[in-house]
């Protein structure tokens, strides 16, 4: 027994059959995938990467252009600050080893509020450690070297003689976040460079 769905049903069936066999649907899917990849590649061009640290200038500033807006929400997926309020840098480090960040004399991040360097594991969670220290910064009692420079020791176990400048790492890969609130002019005009995270033997 045949059920009559009316003349439009047959047209609809024909259209669907053509769509599935002609490749139009496949073409739309291919176009959408290529578009997403193109978006990712274009967004990446707005990322500034210096010494292994990634950041972006112009986040959240009205009139910053649609590509920068998209790129910034791709790099930091949340409502973060404009550069004048706070700047953010992030880097991912392979782990399994001892690392040092060396700030030259007078080279700690310039600011009118505060700065912090926060440790995360590969999943971006806090790292359990025996001294309950999850970040270092201008309020954590960092000790300068005799020449005025500052070293931050990034390692799993305490660095003998440098405990005050120790930021405990997990045993594997880790992610670092540097935040500078009300950053100084040298940061805003791009002159200030965050020192690299260097592996030591």
């Amino acid at each position, binding site marked *: 027994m045949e059920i009559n769905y009316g003349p439009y049903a047959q047209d609809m069936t024909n259209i669907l059959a053509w769509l599935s066999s002609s490749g139009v649907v496949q*073409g739309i899917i*291919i176009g959408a995938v290529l578009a997403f990849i193109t978006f990712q590649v274009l967004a990446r061009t707005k990322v500034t990467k210096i010494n292994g640290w990634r950041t972006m200038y112009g986040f959240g500033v009205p009139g910053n252009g649609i590509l920068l807006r*998209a790129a910034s929400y791709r790099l930091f997926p949340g409502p973060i*600050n404009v550069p004048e309020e706070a700047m953010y840098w992030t880097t991912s480090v392979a782990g399994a080893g001892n690392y040092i960040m060396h700030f030259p004399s007078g080279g700690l991040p310039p600011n009118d509020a505060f700065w912090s360097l926060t440790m995360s594991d590969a999943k971006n969670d806090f790292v359990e450690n025996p001294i309950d220290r999850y970040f270092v910064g201008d309020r954590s009692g960092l000790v300068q070297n005799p020449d005025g420079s500052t070293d931050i020791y990034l390692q799993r176990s305490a660095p003998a003689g440098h405990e005050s400048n120790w930021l405990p790492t997990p045993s594997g890969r880790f992610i670092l976040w540097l935040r500078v609130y009300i950053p100084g002019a040298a940061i805003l005009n791009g002159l200030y460079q965050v020192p690299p995270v260097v592996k030591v033997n």
Partner: protein
Amino acid sequence: MNKLILKYAYPLTFALLMLLAWVVYQHLSTGIMPLAVAAVIVWPTATFLFIYFWPRLILGVYKKAALVKGFGDGPIQINTLYTQPQALFADPLHVTLPPGSSPLMSYGTNLDTLYTVGCLDLSKGSQVLHVPDMAGRYYAVQFTDPSDGTNFAYVGKRTTGTKAGDYLISGPGSKGTVPQGMKQISSPNNSVLVIGRVFVSDDSDLPNAYDLARQIQLAPPSPSRSS
């Protein structure tokens, strides 16, 4: 799931492209034109749409998390502010949010500032933001347009100082007058995301900072003052 996708982004992309190449290859014998035309039209169009809507998409997720699930004490009512739980800030490794809460606000690692968040709807009238005297403490209240992700105004140490104050936040169609003693913040959109950050020096400072963060509040303008 998301983390797996991020971790294997390159091999997954490669596998997907190979699959699509195979689809194209299958169509080479039967006619490639419909497929090619569709792809060529969709590619630039969808690229533009991704770029244009990405901030709105991300902030839409954030806004929905706040209004539907909340960040520790149930959904956050519109035109109210919510400060993240003090216990979670004090011990993020061991304290967990109650079931049903959104993890978005506690995602990532930040022990610098307490977050105070809220979503505004200015279509039914302006709102007044009250900030307490922060006595020199760093804080900032950021006003974000969820349609494009730009921050159109700030109240805080950098922009307005740390003394107590009241700020009238009004939407694009607002015609009311500004009550005396208040500064006006004009929003380009009736929908606004408010993100407050209050500096926490250390564990012993947390109760103080939390108390101050909770005093950042929203209220409708009082009729007697806004006549």
